[in-house]
């Protein structure tokens, strides 16, 4: 289905390549049988499955280097894999290629507490960083909801976000250095242990590059002092619009909360059934607003935000009174995806970003399309930074339902672009959103991306066929769109 062949011919058989790998990698970690490779056939987006030719789990950088050299020599595609929690089919294997699992790279190399830096292997789990830093009163700020499982290498490759990103930034804002192996196996160091070096910002370019530009072997992240105090305010509202206005007002009053999340009624219900956090199930929308900082600052801003929420018609307000209560209130939000997942055989998570002011309009449109397609949708929303996660519920055992879901999802993303936003805020393009890329970029822009890919990977063997669509595919998309628009236009005039 997704077999993106490399541009040049592969010059080695599976058997020979496996034998070559076994000369320097523990035989157990060179996997060639289908059964054992099955666990790698997809990432978090299970609709895209593919079996790799070979899977390797190298244990050190020299081994990765040798894997890359061999693959480069024989034109074999290489797909890196972190924890496989990605939601865009970025880590989906290539049938002609090697799946390079970075799972063995799980060591925290150094917590430099005086400099507030952590040096990490790429397979370290996101949450493990904060756990290790805690004894120094430090933590790692970007906290994707998948943080128990996802790897820091995957976070850099997708430029992952989380509920605290409005105030503390995305992965790209919290990484100072990355060590990378080029497709030829050469080692590069981008960035440094200080801040802002001389020259073009290649470190930024690597963020969100989805394993298309190089293999990340080490990452140095910044750690922040754990705030003295954090409290979360849970507020219910009678409409999504009222909740959206409340978010706008908090920001207009000059307050940047540590986190600002919104859920719609369906998501509230699902999360409450899952986490029993005491969410206002009768509300049409819920806001979780976290304030963190010094004790005095939190006290002052909790009062201000509570007042704003009251003024703007909150139907219920609850302020966490203990750390346990704060974590409980977040638990509902952080488990929203699996919670919604329980209500349906399958769900499909979208990731568009919009200007916040467009929220009510976009949600109204999504609800309209939900009726049109006959598919239910729950919405969770990083409200502070406009990143929307509609979760479409479907049943893949029903013929054609996934295709229908994908079409619906695609229309949501096109809507996001139309109101001034984009097709992905934090989950990436992978295979999944190739189709919508031409909605956001024209052919010259797409060509520019290909040229940048070529700068790092002239033979195109790193994660081929992901991230950037071919121009041919863009043409097809535009033709299809034109036809569809013509049909729609025809209906209107009829």
């Amino acid at each position, binding site marked *: 289905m997704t077999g993106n062949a490399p541009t040049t011919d592969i010059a080695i058989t599976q058997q020979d390549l496996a034998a070559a790998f076994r000369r320097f990698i523990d035989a157990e970690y060179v996997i060639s049988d289908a059964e054992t490779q099955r666990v790698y056939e997809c990432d978090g987006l299970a609709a895209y499955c593919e079996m790799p030719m070979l899977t390797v789990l190298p244990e050190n950088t020299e081994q990765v280097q040798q894997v890359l050299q061999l693959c480069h020599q024989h034109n074999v595609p290489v797909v890196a894999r972190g924890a496989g929690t990605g939601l865009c089919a970025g880590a989906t294997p290539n049938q002609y290629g090697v799946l390079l699992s970075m799972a063995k790279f799980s060591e925290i190399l150094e917590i430099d507490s005086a400099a507030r830096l952590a040096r990490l292997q790429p397979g370290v789990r996101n949450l493990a960083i904060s756990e290790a830093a805690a004894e120094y009163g430090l933590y790692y700020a970007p906290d994707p909801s998948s943080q128990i499982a996802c790897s820091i290498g995957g976070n850099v490759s997708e430029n992952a976000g989380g509920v605290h990103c409005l105030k503390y930034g995305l992965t790209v804002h919290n990484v100072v250095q990355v060590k990378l192996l080029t497709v030829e196996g050469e080692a590069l160091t981008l960035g*440094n242990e200080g801040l802002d070096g001389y020259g073009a910002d290649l470190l930024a370019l690597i963020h969100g590059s989805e394993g298309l530009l190089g293999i990340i072997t080490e990452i140095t992240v910044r750690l922040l002092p754990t705030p003295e105090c954090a409290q979360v305010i849970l507020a219910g509202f009678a409409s999504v619009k009222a909740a959206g206005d409340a978010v706008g007002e908090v920001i207009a009053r000059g307050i940047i909360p540590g986190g600002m999340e919104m859920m719609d009624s369906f998501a509230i219900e699902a999360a409450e059934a899952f986490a029993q956090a005491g969410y206002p199930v009768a509300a049409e929308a819920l806001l979780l607003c976290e304030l963190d900082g010094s004790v005095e*600052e939190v006290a002052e801003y909790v009062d201000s935000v509570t007042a704003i929420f009251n003024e703007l018609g909150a139907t219920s307000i609850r302020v966490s009174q203990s750390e346990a209560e704060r974590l409980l209130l977040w638990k509902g939000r952080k488990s929203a995806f699996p919670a919604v997942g329980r209500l349906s055989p399958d769900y499909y998570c979208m990731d568009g970003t919009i200007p916040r002011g467009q929220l009510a309009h976009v949600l109204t449109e999504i609800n309209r399309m939900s009726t049109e397609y006959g598919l239910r949708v729950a919405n969770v929303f990083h409200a502070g930074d406009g990143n929307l996660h509609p979760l479409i519920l479907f049943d893949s055992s029903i013929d054609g339902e996934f295709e229908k879901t994908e079409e619906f999802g695609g229309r949501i993303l096109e809507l996001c672009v139309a109101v001034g936003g984009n097709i992905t805020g*934090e989950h990436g393009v992978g295979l999944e959103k190739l189709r919508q890329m031409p909605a956001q970029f024209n052919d010259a822009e797409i060509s520019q991306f290909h040229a940048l890919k070529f700068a790092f990977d002239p033979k195109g063997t790193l994660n081929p066929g992901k991230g950037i669509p071919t121009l041919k595919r863009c043409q097809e998309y535009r033709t299809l769109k034109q036809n569809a628009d013509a049909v729609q236009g025809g209906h209107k005039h009829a």
Partner: protein
Amino acid sequence: MPDISTQLLEQVQTALAEHSTLDIRGNRTKTALGRASAADSVPLDLHAHSGIVNYEPGELVMTARAGTTLAEIDAALAEHGQMLACDPRRFGGQATLGGSLATHQSGPARPWYGSLRDHVLGVRLINGRGEHLRFGGQVMKNVAGYDVSRLQAGAMGTLGVLTEISVKVLPQPDYSQTLIKTCDIFDGHTLSQQLASSTKPLTGMTWVDDTLYLRLQGSQQAVAASTRQWQEAYQTTAIEPEQGTQFWQQLREHELDFHRQPAGHSGSPKLWRFSINPRTGPFLTGERWLVNWGGAQRWISGEYDLETLGEHAQASGGEVCLYESSDGTEERMLMTHPALRRIQQNVKAALDPRGIFNPGRLFSWL
């Protein structure tokens, strides 16, 4: 406030047709930064391409043409109690947004608020094929395609002509207080390390000329409480607000005594910038230092060379560059790693295949 992007595009196409190179210019406030472009380059003037295109205070986003001055941007943001949190060097307000991004400027609060690169959301740029392209956008998050916008930070115009930039803006802090303590560089370093890990609302930490300067910003109560605590615990002194504002401004603008009277070297002073691990203890202690960003950025001036200073920088997990010099022919940073050089050249070729933009401005070999 005209949009002259059509003319700019024509000029680029002409350069391509005539095989000439272009020297991209804003308001020419940063000619001492980086090397000089090849002498026969034709000026491409951006300063007339100015004006704020869109500003949505509620969305925390501003989009302006690259030639817009920071003075104009500051004025518009101040009306809504907002600011460019990355606090780029203003050059009397004449610095342009495009030039600030191309040289990757950020002020004293950089470790806490982020740099200009951190706040960039999207750009429009003309590449070396004469195409006017758009990357990123006007929303906080975007991971579709490679991050061409942030790549521009520090590229000094070698990767394209920035024509329009969208940045995240932030509310101004309610309240500020500057604290000082007289101490030598060693004590200053020790105290900085201690305070940097504190949970107080710190937004500035600089040591220069035997004084450590600390800035607290945030809600009035938080700043007042932290001020009291630090006065008692570390015998710091709170200074008058105007004095504090003046210090941070002079620091940002390179207008302190440190910058005006580089010790011991007459003639044309060279200013060197270290970006290193902030925990690094003082070195070359005979020199007059300015230690900024809690130790992550350090400055000296004088007749050094990149090799000698480079060894110190490398030992401290970082790098050094010749930040300012009147000699436009000198290399500003050593980049000897062959693969890294090749990648830089390839990236340049990807955006500017014929090498028409600012040849030699960043590196002699680029």
